[in-house]
């Protein structure tokens, strides 16, 4: 009798085990699907940009698109050359980096190597606040605050131009550059610094000749990520660079970047026109540019971190 009952219980337990096993397996697959969604979205973005963008080239030659300076899709003789938009994007991006890279690395070095722990604990979240300010607010200040200052200083009729956009983008790239550079500088092994200090060099010399060179790959990644942000940023450059699709002649020229062109024009075009498709084609070029920049930073950052 008791044997029989035990056997039955065993059967029930093994049934339950099986059920748990199925449930466990099902859950694992469910969580995996959520992870795979990231791949699907990334691939989906690229696919839709291409499928909506490629029809541009039924009307426009690839050569014109990439090598013409004339962007004027609403003219009776429409022009679909994106070169001036690309140059404008690069101009503000380079301008932004010229200012944000040195300042950002200096601040990162200060946080990692000079500031006292208490000071660092306050400064880090404060700098994070800068990262959280919406780009539309930064753009607004470009119009109402920075623009007039630039116009007055240089005697211009208005201050919405390359230099305004560069400064705004630089401010927006700063938090990225600082936080990743600081991680890189903090990650340099203590032994390096101790060895240098033991040789009788001072802390400044050690920072410049030992610590920063040792952190260079991380700092490079930080600069690339900041660059990616600057290339892709929309609202600040849309509002503060004067909205003129032309090749910049000086830092006081009004321009219009790739992102700003999409933002301004896409709202007004009917679906499936050449103009509509061409804006997706710009989006695809933008996607490829930021993807490459991010990929480089990714490779630099994770070259040694495969196992993390």
């Amino acid at each position: 009798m008791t044997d029989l009952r035990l056997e039955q219980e065993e059967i029930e337990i093994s049934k339950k085990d099986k059920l748990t096993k199925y449930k466990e397996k099902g859950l694992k697959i469910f969580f995996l699907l959520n992870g795979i969604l990231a791949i699907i979205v990334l691939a989906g973005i690229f696919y839709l940009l291409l499928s909506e963008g490629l029809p541009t080239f039924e009307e426009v030659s690839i050569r014109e698109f990439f090598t013409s300076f004339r962007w004027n899709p609403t003219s009776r003789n429409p022009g679909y050359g994106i070169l001036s938009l690309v140059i404008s994007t690069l101009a503000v991006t380079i301008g932004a980096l010229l200012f944000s890279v040195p300042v950002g690395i200096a601040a990162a070095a200060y946080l990692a190597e000079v500031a006292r722990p208490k000071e660092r604990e306050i400064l880090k979240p404060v700098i994070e606040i800068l990262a959280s300010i919406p780009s539309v607010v930064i753009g607004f200040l470009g119009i109402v605050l920075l623009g007039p200052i630039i116009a007055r200083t240089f005697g211009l009729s208005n201050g919405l131009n390359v230099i305004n956009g560069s400064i705004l983008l630089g401010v927006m790239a700063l938090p990225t550059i600082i936080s990743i550079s600081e991680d890189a500088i903090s990650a340099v092994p203590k032994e390096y610094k101790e060895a240098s200090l033991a040789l009788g060099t001072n802390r400044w010399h050690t920072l410049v000749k030992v610590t920063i060179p040792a952190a260079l790959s991380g700092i490079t990644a930080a600069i690339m990520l900041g660059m990616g942000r600057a290339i892709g940023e929309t609202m600040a450059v849309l509002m503060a660079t004067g909205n003129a699709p032309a090749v910049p002649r000086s830092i006081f020229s009004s321009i219009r970047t790739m992102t700003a062109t999409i933002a301004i024009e896409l709202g007004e075009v009917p679906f499936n026109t050449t103009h509509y498709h061409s804006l997706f084609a710009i989006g695809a070029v933008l996607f490829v540019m930021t993807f490459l920049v991010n990929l480089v930073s990714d490779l630099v950052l994770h070259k040694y971190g495969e196992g993390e």
Partner: protein
Amino acid sequence: MTDNLKQKLGFGILRLSTWLILFILFIILYDIISKGIGVISWEFLTTAPRSGMTEGGIWPAVIGTVLVTMITALFAVPIGVFAAIYLNEYASQGKLTRTIRMAIRNLAGVPSIVYGLFGLALFVKNLGLGTSVLSAGLTLGLLTLPVTITASEEALKSVPNSYRHGSLALGVSKWHTIRHNVLPNAIPGILTGAILGLSRAAGETAPILFTGAAFFLPRIPDSLGSQFMALPYHLYILSTQHHSIGVVRPIAYGTAFVLIVLVLILNLVAIFIRYRFRKNLSK
């Protein structure tokens, strides 16, 4: 120049750079707060714009932003947590896991305007959701996904392995262990990341430009299928597209003030939760 002097000078420059950044942040906050706070009144917050947006308040934009951010949260937080559970609790080191991680890092670098294009093509056009709260919320959800996944994974990672081993050793199933021993301890970290991600989404403009934000709509959206006003888009309109920009400048400052205060409050809440959480963990 002696080495000592060099060091003093060098550290001085580093300190100056840091101060410059604090100064920039101060200027941004000071300008918006000092010029925006005078505009704020109960009426400004609770009435709709009137007379071609030159008078009245920003009520529909406040509600629109809250609604769209809620959709974003409903979409991005659960998926983010589930994906993080896979990556931290189940995934083995392999090609698939590496590809997922790479995809997440790259998604984080996709420009927000490109998310806008994707949202327009997928939700508005192909799935037929139209320009609506739903389309905009889902678009912002995709944009926020990398943040919620990464933050949730960090939070799960910070739960000590002994919590898992103790439970598993008692013969408890893996899911039961995750649910009762791991997740509860990761919740503060997940929450912090989610709030930071949502505060960013709430301030985004480019992704909602073509997916649902309306130029002017003096009422709150009555369904998920209707267009909506949003604070960041409203600020953009008031400062660039309005016919009399000078007249509406105070309203623009007021809108910027509300937007910044909203984002700052969310950030302070997140910082506070993280601070408490760290203290608890180190106990």
